[in-house]
């Protein structure tokens, strides 16, 4: 019973407490946006051929966050979009700018495939989450009589992402949304380690997705 209470207390403490996160989300609108019924969005990572390191789980997180909650938008799965437009959106062949998009939209079969899927916007994600610094020391030991940890460790993660939104109806860039999150996690341990984790990437995902939904759905004039 005592052990159960301790575990519960640790769980509650770690759930309530967390690391510190500072966040900045900005958007820059170039064109008027809006999403009509039946229109959808596709989320893509900029090509790794250009050195982009955007994590696959971050892309999935943004996709899921766009699909859910207030102002949810219809999202076409990335792989389905790439397969339906093969070979024009492969890492090597995908357009790098809207000039390339204009050329691409003249290729036979491409506009029809885009129309069939109802894709209005492509959201290109760039950036990643990196551990920028860490410190402290923590040591654990275990023996026949039990074990425990002692010490204090901390680390800082920076999540910097940029989403470029392209409107496929006029092959123009609609604007960009950037999310810069910095989170510091702490791990104090006095027999039992108590992780105070800053979920930097997860917060950057929800922050970017929220702003993206607002950006896309808004019909605000430029």
């Amino acid at each position, binding site marked *: 019973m005592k052990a159960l209470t301790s575990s519960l207390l640790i769980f509650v403490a770690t759930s309530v407490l967390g690391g510190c996160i500072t966040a900045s989300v900005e958007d820059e609108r170039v064109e008027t946006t809006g999403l009509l019924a039946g229109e959808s969005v596709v989320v893509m990572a900029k090509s790794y051929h250009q050195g982009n390191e955007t994590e696959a789980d971050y892309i999935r997180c943004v996709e899921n966050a766009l699909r859910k909650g207030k102002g949810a938008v219809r999202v076409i799965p990335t792989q389905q979009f790439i397969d339906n437009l093969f070979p024009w959106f492969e890492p*090597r*062949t995908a357009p790098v700018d809207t000039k390339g998009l204009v050329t691409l939209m003249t290729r036979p079969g491409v506009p029809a495939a885009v129309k069939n899927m109802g894709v209005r916007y492509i959201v290109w994600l760039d950036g990643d989450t990196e551990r920028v610094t860490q410190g402290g020391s923590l040591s654990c030991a275990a023996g026949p009589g039990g074990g425990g940890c002692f010490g204090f460790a901390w680390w800082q993660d920076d999540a910097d992402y940029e989403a470029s939104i392209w409107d496929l109806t006029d092959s123009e860039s609609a604007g960009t949304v950037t999310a810069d999150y910095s989170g510091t996690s702490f791990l104090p341990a006095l027999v039992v380690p108590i992780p105070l984790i800053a979920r930097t990437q997860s917060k950057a995902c929800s922050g970017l997705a929220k702003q993206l939904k607002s950006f896309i759905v808004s019909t605000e004039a430029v």
Partner: protein
Amino acid sequence: MLIASVRRISVELCVPTQLRYSSHFHSSARTIDHLIATKLLKSSVILISLLAAGCASNVTVEQPTIPAPHIDKLPMDVAVRIPAEFNNFVHEENILGKEKWTINLGAANAAFFEQLFGFMFDNVIVLGPADDATEYTFDALVEPQIEGFEFSVPNQSKTDAFAVWIRYRMQIFDSVGNSASTWTVSAYGKSQKEGLGSSKSLQRAAVLAMRDAAALILLQMDKSTKIGELADGPLDLSNLDGDGPVEEDNGFGSASIFAIGGIDEGTD
């Protein structure tokens, strides 16, 4: 720290066991010691074998499927000679001081090129390594080969990604067997490590590299090798300027033909 503690436990467990045997069974102590030594030796051999097995990774790449491309087929009959190695390609590599990787592409390359050329040309004849090409009628014969296969794992690249590079060499002959061109295709695939299975990530990187090669071949092969001109008949050797067949390396080192990440303006 934790490992050190575990080691200490194993010492504590082993030493009293031996002492107990030697004190209680004086008459047969040697036999028992011998038995214990044998058992320990066997256990050590099993443990070492298990550890050694843990340092070897096997990856089997399933046949990749290429989606139907949005390109126009070239109106010509092409024969593709699938080399023997394409039916059972295995790449083995020891990463110094780390682990041994065995990547089995099996018949993935054979299936890949059959499907790819089926999308590129009006008619495709698939020839085996032993087939006599002179018994068939075609406009051009393509002989793909794997010139190089390389990969990197996160330990090497100090990233979370597995990467695969495949270099294909395509030799093209006209309908009477003259060498028309040689083209090297360098393909690259990268997949981030997800979950616990390294083999799945490396497998995906290999499939992405093959898909990368497919995209490049679909969009650039005719431009780089002028294979389409062979539909008008075999090479007129008297018109060649003496430079021999077209030879081009269209890999990552070459930025001229296909700007990485962009659509070549002159693809049409």
